[in-house]
């Protein structure tokens, strides 16, 4: 049984760190074109920012509404990724060919730039939601059953 921690220091640190981690995750996501990082790392960091409060404050204090729906959000992230890929396929080009995305007024390379950003957001959503979902699944027994 995982019990919530009751130290004030831990609580305060968790409160302070959660938004910082989220901010860093957003930076990693949107700056992935220029520096190390990208959708996957951002998603994992975001998942960490959701998991940290659950570890510290206990599962009751968490976004319990997420619990079973997290995996749906993961599916939506993947649908975003694959949907961006599907648009060119339906237009008669190749799957995932962002150069052929119907964005007006852009060079092919710029379209690819924005296409990459779009799929990175999809990956970030999918990874964050799925990691949280795995975490919830793994500790599901922690609720009523005890040990």
């Amino acid at each position, binding site marked *: 049984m995982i019990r919530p921690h009751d130290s004030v220091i831990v609580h305060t640190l968790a409160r302070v760190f959660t938004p910082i981690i989220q901010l860093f995750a957003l930076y990693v996501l949107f700056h992935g074109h*220029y*520096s*190390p990082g990208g959708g*996957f790392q951002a998603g994992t960091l975001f998942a960490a920012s959701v998991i940290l409060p659950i570890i510290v404050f206990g599962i009751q204090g968490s976004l319990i509404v997420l619990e079973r729906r997290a995996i749906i959000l993961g599916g939506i992230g993947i649908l975003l990724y694959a949907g961006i890929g599907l648009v060119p396929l339906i237009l008669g080009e190749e799957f995932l060919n962002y150069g052929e995305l119907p964005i007006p007024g852009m060079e092919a390379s710029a379209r690819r730039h924005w296409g990459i950003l779009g799929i990175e957001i999809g990956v970030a959503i999918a*990874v964050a939601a799925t990691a949280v979902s*795995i975490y919830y*699944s*793994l500790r599901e*027994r922690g609720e009523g059953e005890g040990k």
Partner: protein
Amino acid sequence: MADILLYRPHFVAFIILFLLGIYIMVVNLNLVKKLIGMYLMQTSIILFFITLAVKRDGTIPILVSSATALPPEAYANPLPHVLMLTAIVVGVSTLGVSLAMVIALYRQYNTLEEDEILGKMK
């Protein structure tokens, strides 16, 4: 043979980690220990690929200003990095699933030792 051991430390470390990982996965009867072995095996393969990407005096594969500023020889090879990012994700996914199996097995048999589980099945 001897010069490999001296001049390819990465390769030697890779062999040690890889064989250690498989050995633990096959021999150890504790389910979590098996997964620790699996983690070692997967990371050792990442080590193998990353050393393929190294170039002497090469910098990280983020281009400076314009593509023509530096020749390709000046950057580390990005392809193995990409492959290994995927491999890391595959590794953590496999780990998640296998830990779920371990927890489910523990719920049913109340032990993490494979021989005890086999004993309780009979």
